[in-house]
C-alpha cells in the first residue's frame, strides 16, 4: 500500500476541495479494510480487540474508549434484534468544524469505517445522523452511499460473506441537543430530542429499545486505517499514550485560522504558533477554549500542554472536539462568555430546572454586566449557578458543559468581570 501514513484521515483529500469518489477512494487503497474483514473471516471480536489495542478514543467530545464501548454490545442468540450503529454527524458545538471536512471531502472513508464498526458490533442497520445545515456534506454522502450500494458494498450479503448492512442518511431538524447520544436516539425515533436518563446505556437499550452504538464521524473515520495498518501503527502515530492523529483546528484572530491533521499530543502552543501562525499583528493572546464551547479556558501558562485527553484533564480542561477558539486582548472576555452562555441557554432542552432556568438567569446577569448594569455580588451568583450545573445534577452533559467556560472565565478573567461592574460599562466598547 502506498501513501504517507502520517495523515491517514486527510491524505486522500484534494486541494481543490472536490470529493474523493468511490473510484478514487479505491485507487488509494479504500475498501480494503472491510474486504480484509469480510473475506478472510476476521471475527467481530477480533476487530473489537484490534480497536481496543489501538487505544482509539471518541473524537466527539467525551473521549470514551471506542473498543470498550463496542464490547458492551450484547451478542449471541438471545440478543434483541436488530442492533444499530449510529454515526453522530450532528457537529453543532460552537467553534467546531472538523467532521464537515471529513464528510465533504472523503465520504467513503466514513462509509467504510461505519461498515467495519457495524460488523464489529454485529449491527444490521446503520444511520448517519447529519445536521440539516450541512447541505454539501448531505449531497456528497448521499451520492457516496448510492455508489456503495451500486457496487453491492452495502445491502445484502456483502462480498459474499453472509454479512448484510443497510446504511441510511438522516437529516436533522436542527437542535444542538440532538448531538447528545440519547437526545439523538429520540430525534431519530421522530420525537423531541430530550436526552434520556442513563442507565440503561445505549449499547444495551438504545434506538427503538435495541442495542445501539453511537460514535462520532472522526472516530469512525479512523477505523479502516486501524484495520489496514494495525493497532500498533495507530498507537505510534500519537506522541503520547493516546493513539492516532487528530484533526486540530484554530479559529479567532490568528494569522491562519484552519484545520490540520496532526499527531495526538501535539502541544497547544505548536498548533497556535506554527500551524495557525500566531496572533494577528498588533493583538496579544489572552486565552483559548481547547475543544469547542463546552471546554475550560486555557491561559498562557498552560499553552505547552499536549493536546491529549489526560494532559488536558491535568490542567483542568478537556480535549472536547480539538478545535480551539482563541481569545485576543481586544475582545472582551465577558462578552465572549455571554455569547457562550446565550448559546447554551437557547439550546437547553428545557427538562432539568438547573439547566433551563439557571442558564437563562446567568445569561441575564452577563448581559446586564456587558451593558453596564452589573451589580456587586453578581460574580458570586454566577459561581453559584455553575455549581448547580455540575455533573449529576442534570440529565445530560449540556449544563456541565456550559459551566466549564463560565467557571474558568471567572477564574482567569476575574479582573475583567470586576472592572465591568466597577466602571458600569464594557471597557472594550
Amino acid at each position: 500500500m502506498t501513501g504517507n501514513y502520517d495523515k491517514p484521515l486527510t491524505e486522500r483529500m484534494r486541494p481543490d476541495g472536490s470529493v474523493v469518489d468511490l473510484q478514487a477512494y479505491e485507487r488509494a487503497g479504500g475498501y480494503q479494510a472491510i474486504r480484509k474483514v469480510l473475506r478472510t473471516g476476521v471475527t467481530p471480536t477480533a476487530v473489537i480487540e484490534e480497536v481496543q489495542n489501538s487505544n482509539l478514543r471518541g473524537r466527539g467530545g467525551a473521549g470514551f474508549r471506542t473498543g470498550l464501548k463496542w464490547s458492551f454490545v450484547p451478542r449471541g442468540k438471545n440478543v434483541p434484534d436488530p442492533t444499530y450503529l449510529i454515526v453522530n454527524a450532528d457537529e453543532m458545538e460552537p467553534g467546531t468544524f472538523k467532521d464537515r471536512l471529513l464528510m465533504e471531502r472523503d465520504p467513503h472513508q466514513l462509509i467504510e469505517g461505519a461498515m467495519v464498526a457495524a460488523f464489529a458490533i454485529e449491527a444490521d442497520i446503520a444511520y448517519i445522523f447529519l445536521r440539516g445545515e450541512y447541505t454539501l456534506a448531505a449531497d456528497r454522502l448521499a451520492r457516496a452511499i448510492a455508489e456503495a450500494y451500486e457496487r453491492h458494498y452495502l445491502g445484502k450479503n456483502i462480498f459474499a460473506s453472509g454479512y448484510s448492512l443497510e446504511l441510511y442518511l438522516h437529516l436533522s431538524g436542527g437542535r444542538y441537543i440532538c448531538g447528545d447520544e440519547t437526545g439523538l436516539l429520540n430525534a431519530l425515533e421522530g420525537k423531541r430530542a430530550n436526552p434520556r436518563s442513563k442507565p440503561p446505556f445505549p449499547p444495551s437499550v438504545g434506538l427503538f429499545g435495541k442495542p445501539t452504538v453511537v460514535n462520532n464521524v472522526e472516530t469512525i473515520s479512523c477505523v479502516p486505517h486501524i484495520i489496514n495498518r494495525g493497532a500498533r501503527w495507530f498507537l505510534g502515530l500519537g506522541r503520547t499514550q493516546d493513539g492516532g492523529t487528530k484533526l486540530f483546528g484554530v479559529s479567532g484572530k490568528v494569522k491562519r485560522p484552519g484545520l490540520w491533521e496532526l499527531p495526538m499530543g501535539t502541544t497547544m502552543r505548536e498548533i497556535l504558533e506554527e500551524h495557525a501562525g500566531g496572533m494577528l499583528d498588533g493583538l496579544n493572546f489572552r486565552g483559548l477554549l481547547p475543544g469547542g464551547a463546552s471546554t475550560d479556558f486555557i491561559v498562557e501558562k498552560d499553552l505547552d500542554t499536549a493536546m491529549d485527553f489526560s494532559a488536558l484533564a491535568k490542567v483542568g480542561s478537556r480535549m472536547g472536539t480539538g478545535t480551539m477558539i482563541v481569545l485576543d486582548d481586544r475582545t472582551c472576555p465577558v462578552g465572549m462568555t455571554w455569547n457562550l452562555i446565550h448559546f447554551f441557554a437557547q439550546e437547553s432542552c428545557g427538562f432539568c430546572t438547573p439547566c433551563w432556568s439557571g442558564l437563562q438567569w446567568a445569561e441575564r446577569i452577563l448581559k446586564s454586566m456587558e451593558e453596564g448594569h452589573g451589580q456587586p455580588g453578581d460574580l458570586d451568583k454566577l459561581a453559584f449557578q455553575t455549581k448547580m450545573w455540575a455533573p449529576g445534577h442534570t440529565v445530560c452533559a449540556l449544563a456541565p458543559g456550559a459551566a466549564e467556560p463560565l467557571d474558568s472565565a471567572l477564574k482567569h478573567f476575574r479582573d475583567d468581570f470586576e472592572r465591568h461592574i466597577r466602571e458600569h460599562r464594557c471597557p472594550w466598547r
Partner: protein
Amino acid sequence: MLTAEEIQEIETEAEHYPKREAVCIDALRIVQRHRGWVSDENVRDIAEHLRMSVTDVDSVATFYNLIFRKPVGRHVVMICDSVSCWIMGYDRVRTHLRERLGIDYGQTTSDNRFTMLPIVCLGCCDHAPAMMVDRDLHSDLTPQKIDAAIEKYR
C-alpha cells in the same frame, strides 16, 4: 392535503425505520421543502397520514430550529451568531444585513424576498464570520461579500 409527491417522498423515507412515527421529522422537512414552511394544516395532514396525534406532531415541529412554523420569504438568510463568528465580527454582519434588507430577525422583506434568522455555529469557524442563504454557505464575510451574495438571490 399532502400532495402525491410529498406522500411518496415520505413513504420512501419511512422504509428506513421500523416504526411509522419515526419518519415524522423527515415528513416535516419534506413538506417544508415543497411549501417553504409548515402550516397548522400541514401539521394536521402529516399527523393524519402518520396516524399520530396533532399535538405530538406539533410538539416535534416546534422543537426543531430548521422547521419553520410561520411563512418565510423566498430566501432565508441565516446568520451565525456563535462564538467564533462573534469574535470575528458578527455584530457588523448583522448590522449590515439589517440596514441593507431593512429587516431584523424573524422578519420578512415587503417584497417577500428575504427572511432573516440567527443560526448556531455553521462549522465554518476558520472562515468566520459566516451565514447561510437557503442551502448555500457564505464565509469570510465583508460588507462587499454580503452585498454580492445577496444580489444572487432574486
